[in-house]
């Protein structure tokens, strides 16, 4: 940063003579180049867009009214050019770091917009469904990623989110089937999430087991135990034990009548509202409360924290166990929040996607949420595009979010920095 000294104020602010470090330069060029490639692909898509109107459905299931007709190619071209402009601005103008994110976001929106125009030229794209589905896919990811944020900020790596999802989904299904109570199901799911977290905490904090190893083992363990119990109990007695009631949507009066986003965001199940709450609470707690400060302290520099009298292990236990609540609720979404009955390995790697969202979001609750929404968006887009039939095979579209993650981790995010003591057990002499 070049700060102008007070006596230099009258001098005309000529070109800010910022000297760029070589590393920053390569980074700028690499990221910018990547952005440009995406922008050009978007532009190319726009050029090859069929003439005709792209129709966007603004209310779910409504095929007559509330349609948005756009000239596909014109809009596509506009977005493509805007995207190229954003990429060029990033490369040429040396945009300050804090605006770079906005430029990247703008580019992303342009790219997706151009892509949608290309895919839905002459067809109807269910836009409302797209956002609805995004939220559905993202909800457990957000909860899982937040759980990761909480425990990793305290210095305990949590690869076991997938395992917590599985046990949460399982218990929620069983408890909902046997008691018929949604509240009981959610509480039970949270409790098993905490139970798995307790395993993670005890083995990593007390027995100093390598946390990455431990996480993988816990996932295998959860897969095995839920699979075993499913085979032994749920399978033969499905009517009694595996017929959970899916949570019903609760409309929030007022907010739900906001056009377009209202019904998508505020006509949801209690679990989704809990997710909104969790994002706010985790962000607040982590950055505004004493406990949060302590969590971050023991995750960055446990020894310093210990020196000033913070009980490192106790803070770590509390963070990991509270994270378990979130991950367990995330698991509950798979059964009582969405699909109903439990099936073996039904979380299908979502816990690992949550982990990726956590890292893409740079261990920040808001960043992790945005990354989770991105994953949700891509997954939902794939199923939508299969419905409106694009020339791209569905399997290749399914790859997109994963490839995007690799690109993001390798190119855009670059060297992400985890909490410094993440993964290191704290041993007092």
């Amino acid at each position, binding site marked *: 940063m070049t700060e102008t000294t007070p006596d230099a104020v009258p001098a005309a602010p000529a070109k800010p003579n910022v000297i760029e470090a070589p590393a920053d330069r390569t980074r700028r060029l690499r990221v910018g180049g990547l952005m440009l490639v995406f922008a050009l692909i978007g532009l190319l898509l726009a050029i090859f867009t069929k003439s005709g109107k792209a129709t966007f459905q603004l209310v779910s299931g409504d095929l007559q009214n509330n349609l948005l007709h756009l000239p596909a190619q014109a809009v596509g071209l506009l977005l493509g050019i805007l995207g190229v402009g954003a990429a060029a601005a990033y490369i040429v103008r040396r945009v300050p770091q804090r605006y770079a994110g906005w430029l990247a976001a703008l580019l992303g929106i342009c790219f997706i917009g151009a892509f949608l125009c290309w895919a839905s030229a002459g067809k109807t794209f269910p836009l409302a469904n797209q956002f609805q589905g995004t939220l559905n896919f993202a909800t457990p990811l957000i909860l899982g990623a937040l759980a990761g944020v909480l425990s990793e900020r305290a210095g305990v*790596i949590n*690869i076991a989110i997938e395992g917590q999802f599985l046990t949460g989904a399982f218990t929620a299904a069983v408890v909902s089937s046997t008691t018929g109570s949604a509240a009981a199901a959610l509480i039970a799911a949270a409790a098993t999430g905490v139970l798995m977290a307790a395993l993670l905490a005890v*083995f990593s904090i007390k*027995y*100093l*087991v*390598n*946390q*990455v*190893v*431990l996480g*993988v*083992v*816990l996932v*295998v*363990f959860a*897969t*095995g*135990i839920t*699979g*075993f*119990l*499913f*085979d*032994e*109990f749920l399978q033969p007695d499905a009517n009694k034990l595996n017929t959970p009631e899916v949570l019903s949507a609760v409309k929030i009066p007022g907010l739900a009548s906001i056009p377009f986003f209202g019904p998508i965001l505020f006509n949801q199940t209690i679990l989704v509202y809990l997710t909104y709450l969790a994002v706010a609470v985790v962000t607040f707690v982590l950055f505004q409360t004493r406990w949060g400060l302590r969590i971050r302290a023991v995750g960055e520099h446990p020894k310093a924290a210990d020196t000033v009298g913070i009980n490192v292990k106790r803070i770590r236990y509390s963070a990991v166990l509270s994270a378990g609540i979130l991950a367990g609720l995330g698991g509950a979404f798979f059964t009582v929040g969405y699909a109903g009955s439990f099936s*073996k390995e039904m979380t299908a*790697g979502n816990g*690992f996607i949550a*982990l*990726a969202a956590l*890292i893409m979001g740079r261990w920040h609750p808001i960043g992790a949420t945005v990354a989770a929404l991105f994953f949700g968006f891509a997954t939902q887009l794939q199923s939508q595009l299969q419905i409106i039939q694009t020339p791209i*095979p569905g*399997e*290749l579209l*399914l*790859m997109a979010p*994963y*490839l995007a*993650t*690799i690109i993001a*981790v*390798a*190119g855009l995010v*670059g*060297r*992400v*920095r*985890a909490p*410094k003591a*993440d*993964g*290191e057990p704290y041993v*007092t*002499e």
Partner: protein
Amino acid sequence: MSTETTVEPAPVPAKEPQRSGLPSWAIQGLVSLSAIVLALVVGAILIIVTDDQVKTAMGYFGAAPMDTISAAASAVGEAYKALALGAFGSVTAISESLTQATPLICGGLAVSLAFRTGLFNIGAQGQLIAGAILAAYVGFAWHLPAGLHLIVAILAGLLGGALWGGVVGLLKARTGAHEVIVTIMLNYVAIYLLAWLLTTSAFQRPGRTDPISPIVDSNAQYPQFGDTRLHGGFILSVLAAIFVWWLLNRSTIGFELRAVGANADASRTAGMSVGRAYIIAMVVAGALAGLAGTQQVLGTDLPLTDGVAASVGFDAITVALLGRGTPLGTVLAGLLFGALNAGGLQMQLITQTPLTLTTVLQAVIVLFVAAPALVRSIFRFLPKERGSGAVLAKGWNG
């Protein structure tokens, strides 16, 4: 914090707690054995609480407690007997165990080698699939003379795995992208790539609508041992283990890999190229997983299907963890897990105990092996290891 130790001028060589005459491999063996015993106990508990007869006997526990105990004992006994017979009971059983162990050993080596370089390779699954895709394609689309065809197909498999793994090493070296994330993502990419390929005319068997490829030429198949499912791929697994041992312990490259794995910063200071080590480790690891892919598709399965990898790539992680990243340990762990898988299938058949029980057993074994302190707190007689806890995986910043 009770006693503040003063700084000793010359610290006395640390007093070994419970010094024992046992060499470290023996101690590790004892810990592993104890872990297996503990896992079997956990498994027994699961069998007991889910057994119908035990449940009935529990109903009148007060009247005849022995009934419950004998029912429990017989439930556990029957199940474990079936497990043991299925794993070692006959020539067929043993060959089945070895067949199951074959890809686990290669996959385990792929994870172990990366561990020793300080990388956590969760991507054996994707590398295995990539290898299987290329090997299968060469196997059914090309037609070469006997002998040559198998070799070319195996090489194609090695290449596929090496590419899939190499990307990870390259990205790690060049951009610092964390290998755990990249390998997880590449696993999914490989799964969907395979699913897509099996719908294309190049891969799908003519006349079929399900995702299955033509059967690989008999020239490209591993030779079978007698009537069993065991094939020549098993010998390659053993050779691969010897190769990895040689690479790690007898070659210059291996020394660099281990140095980088032990301390990347110190290695960099000493003039080694850390990035090069990452790339080499991931290329070789990928090739090993690719070899496991050839074993699946040219030995066990023959047509390529979307289930070609089953869960081998993930089981390979637990195998490597149990084997503590050493080639010999990985072979032994692979054999154990192969036996558990083969025995588990028999157990499911005979006593209707779900196969998933073996997954639980495997997880618990590795959990206990990874926590020697816990095992020692249960089995007090176990001596403390010296210099144990070779760093297997580091945190995100590692």
